[in-house]
């Protein structure tokens, strides 16, 4: 039984790794590099500080 479970583990690992690779290539082809690497340190803090509640 444990040997079978071991094979299932390999199969699951391969499937999830394949999904991540597929999603990676899909994402990289759908979005420009400029957008993907546009995150800036400190920017979120600045944005949240400017946020105002609507009355």
């Amino acid at each position, binding site marked *: 039984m*444990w040997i079978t479970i*071991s094979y299932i583990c390999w199969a699951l690992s391969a499937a999830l790794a394949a999904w991540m690779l597929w999603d*990676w290539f899909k994402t990289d082809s759908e979005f420009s590099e400029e957008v993907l690497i546009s995150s*800036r*340190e400190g*920017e979120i803090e600045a944005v949240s500080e400017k946020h105002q509640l609507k009355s």
Partner: protein
Amino acid sequence: MTTATATAGEKGAAKRVSLLRVLGPGHVWALGVGIVLVGEFTGWNFAADKGGALAALITCWFVGLLYTSVAMIDSEVTSTVAAAGGQYAQAKHIVGPLMAFNVALFLVFAYTMLEVSDAILAGDTIVARAATEGLTHNSFIALCIVVLAFLNYRGVLVTLNVNFVVTALAYASIVILFFSVQPWSQGTVLRLGELVNAQNSLPYGWIGVIASFQFAIWYYLGIEGTTQAAEEVRSPARSLPYGTMAGMITLLIAAALTWYVCASLLPWQYLGITIYPLWDAAKMTGSPILDFLLFWGTILSAIASANGCINDAARAWFSLGRDRYLPTWFSAVHPKYRTPYRSILFLLPIALAFAFIADLNQAITFSILSGVLHYTFMSINIIMFRRKWPVGSIRRGYTHPFHPIPALTLFVLCAITFFAIFLGYGSQLSAMVIFYVIVSLWFHFYRYQYVRRGDQFTMPWPKPQGY
């Protein structure tokens, strides 16, 4: 939840995607305790091999002091420098780029090697339980690392929600074991007086106590990982100190319970060499329920730790890319899941490779070495931080008391731990220091030319005192 709230920039500028700010203090707790708790299930007990059961308790207290200093210092600096990369971002703003580069490497090494150790532990534990001829741990290691990388890829909220549940279950297994052995009644189940006595409590004397510092680090190794969530918590100034301090208190209690139960059930000679001190202690009670519970506690703690390590290593690597200390390719954020997906995927095969070829001892040693180098930096960092920006000159989310006592305590205890590591793993320590010197030279003479020097300093602080 996963729709990108890209920030509109100037006219014509592209949309921006950034990490998602969705976490609270509970997630910070889950990240910190989740990374560390595995140390109670394995690792700390090797301190008993170095110096006896009492040495493991003495160092539990002293290393507890070391990590309390780490938690206090970290809470102050990170509640002020709230950026992904944690101590990397702190080092960049307070000390300088070369220190920051090294700190980020300490972080990536410490967390990746800890993840490797966790996966090996999970695999070995399943193989030990299965007791099936021909069964190896490789498939379980692969599943552990890939599933957790997948979780991390899909989003930080789900990752740390899972970590919260898994960590709480593993912690509950320690508490249940503790109350099941009737700790209020020595002699019924527990035999501390027989197992730890005047003849065997410190078999190698005080040098054994010093030597055991190296493995006592495992009681708390990784609590500083809470800071990597700085850019993803809703309120860094509140959540990070709360989560980190609550995590440290949780771990101090867990360490005390663990030592008491294990030292009262296992002779120090065996306690010092077993891979499963808590699981073995549960077996010693003769209860199949406790045996089952602590088996799962061991597995769950390893999973929670590996999960947090993937989260933290990826953010440190991502931050290096964002500042161009490494190619900017690594700084990509997934537009849908809002995670540093390329960094997660880049580190995945590295962790797998180490997990398949390295042994547990080597992986643990490299993790501890990187961790202690990192703590040494923190003691210097906080002194510089307070000198350059004294209390009152900038807004702090938390100000730690008794400065500079925690910094000095941390530095002294790190020095003792380095000596302890040198006693046991001198060649690895030397090799690691040489490695960091070589990569520092590479960074200084080659890589730094690609860094946009003004862009990397993002905190809106006044000029430091003396400049």
